[in-house]
């Protein structure tokens, strides 16, 4: 796998879009920390970037990259390589390059300006979301041969995880207002990697508010090391599930 991975990474990190993405993250991160009067507000802006922009860029860029590499993938398949090796290399190449982009663009400014538990958690969650959405992109690209359909599907998936899912949860909350839904909410959050990440960061940023009302439930579940482990495990499943599913598709695919 190393054989191809190295070259895939070299290719992606030189990609114009990845470079622009890195610089954009860097400019935004530096400016929110320098322009905002307090770092809490800067963190809030970064939170939105991590939860919304990072998944969007990762899923769309990865999908397009996979489609654009179809002939290259064909060539690799004609070589003495296992298909699993090829697919894993492309996934790892995308995941590593985009994680690197995120780390340089947002991670380093966070370390410079906000090197506390909140900052570390934001970096961890940004990296997780990067890899999860690369994995989801692999699935979207694996499901359909048509590039336009594939990109459409990945935008739809992004929209689902960042907006529609939460809207449905909110709707449920109001429909069943009279029932104790806290535990159910915790359960639901595992079905959306963005929610899982958001809650972990929330536990650091808005800990005071979360400790009120339903806070007890969240603290019980997410606040202790067991909850953090479970969240990380959940995110790890979110990385491997779409990836393994797409690999299954790719193995049986006619190129």
């Amino acid at each position, binding site marked *: 796998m190393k054989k191809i991975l190295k070259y895939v990474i070299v290719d992606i990190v030189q990609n114009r879009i990845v470079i622009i993405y890195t610089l954009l993250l860097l400019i935004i991160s530096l400016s929110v920390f320098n322009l905002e009067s307090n770092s809490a507000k800067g963190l*809030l802006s970064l939170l939105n970037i991590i939860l919304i922009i990072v998944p969007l860029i990762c899923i769309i860029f990865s999908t397009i990259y996979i489609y654009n590499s179809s002939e290259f993938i064909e060539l690799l398949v004609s070589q003495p390589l296992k298909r699993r090796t090829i697919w894993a290399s492309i996934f790892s190449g995308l995941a590593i390059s985009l994680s690197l982009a995120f780390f340089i663009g947002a991670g380093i400014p966070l370390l410079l300006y906000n090197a506390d538990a909140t900052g570390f958690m934001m970096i961890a969650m940004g990296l997780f979301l990067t890899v999860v959405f690369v994995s989801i992109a692999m699935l979207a690209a694996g499901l359909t041969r048509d590039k336009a359909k594939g990109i459409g599907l990945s935008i739809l998936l992004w929209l689902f995880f*960042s*907006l529609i899912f939460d809207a449905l949860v*909110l709707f449920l909350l109001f429909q069943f207002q009279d029932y104790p839904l806290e535990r159910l909410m915790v359960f639901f959050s595992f079905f959306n990697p963005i929610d899982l990440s958001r809650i972990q960061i929330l536990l650091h940023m808005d800990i*005071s*508010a979360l*400790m009120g009302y*339903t*806070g007890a439930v969240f603290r019980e579940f997410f606040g202790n090391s067991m909850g953090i482990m479970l969240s990380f495990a959940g995110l790890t499943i979110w990385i491997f599930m779409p990836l393994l599913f797409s690999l299954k598709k790719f193995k049986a695919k006619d190129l």
Partner: protein
Amino acid sequence: MNEEGNACFPAKKQIGMNIKHPFAIVNIAFLLLLLTILSADAKTITVGKSRSVKTIQKGIDMANTGDTVLVYPGIYKERNILLQKSIVLKGINHPVLDGENKYEILSVKTKNATIDGFRLQHSGRSEMRDMGALNIYDSYRVTAINNILDDTNFGFYIQNSRSCTIKDNSITAYGKNEVQSGNGINAWRSDSLLIIGNTIKGHRDGLYFEFVTNSLVWRNISTRNVRYGIHFMFSHHDTYIGNVFEDNDSGVAVMYTNHIYMYNNHFLNNWGDAAYGILLKDITDSDISGNHFTKNTVAIHMEGCSRINLYKNAFYDNGWAVKIQASCDNNDFTRNNFTGNTFDIGTNGSLVLNTFNGNYWDKYEGYDLNRDRTGDVAYHPVSMYSMIIDSNPAALVLFRSLIVSLLDESEKILPGVTPEELRDTRPLMKRLLL
């Protein structure tokens, strides 16, 4: 923390003091002077295990007005020592008075007495009545200073007393729940008390006042109590300066009182679904200024309050900076800093009878074209989602998600749910140095 850099009181426990009431210090000085004069021809009785007078009670019995009973180090298990004379009871290197987990340790019923430098430990506990380690009944000008109370039920138990001073004592209990614990300093029906520089830990309420008036609570630290850091009711005209209330299970709750003055106190880390930096219930005609509220679930919760002036307070990193119920009126918030709070203001109704002008809000996104240092458009500190959470607490799990941000933004453009009148018409552009 201390943004003023006010160095009036370099004392180690103190954080950011303003002398608003210098008379307190003059009072103490005068008292000490008086004692010195009175004791000019007084004698000193020494008590010690290896001396002729072996028990403290015997020493007290032998003393006359103005005498000093000097107690040497040792462990004294004398059940409840009774002090009914105007004398100075002074310990050398904190002699230990042990209550053997059964008895009250020292009861005072006198005027002009001083208890200085003892260690009172293992006081008794009773289901039937409140047992204090050091009781002060019906007294006048009794001073308890520099004592260590350890593993006590109620620490100081003061009733029907006037002008007593509790100063520089360390009061520690190991309470596990509200029912079995007592209060650190419990005062009832008293007047003109000075509670200064005490450190109180692990009680039910750190300080508990009922019908205590014209008193000063100054530079005390009340932490890790199983209920409130301070809890009072019907205690009018009291002043609270430079105290620290930290990590108490339910924060601070004060009720049914008028004319309270709270300056430069710190309310920290009071987390929980019923924990408040300070809960103000039916408090009227009061002044709350220069206080720091940091990392509380709710920094100030107000219900039934009227005519309170809240100014120059710093609200930092709280869940809700202020929750103000619709039952409050004529309260004024001005020149406060609101920074890093999840929600600035929460309320439960649309009726707004309070004012919020001239504060600094870090969430304010307006502009100042005329350069008068206040924003040109009003700030609405109540966010739509805080009202949603108020009616549906589980919705907090969606906070800071895209859908919620969109809802909040649309509410800002077209207000429908949040009270339109609750606003700051001249929000400050720059944070105040508090």
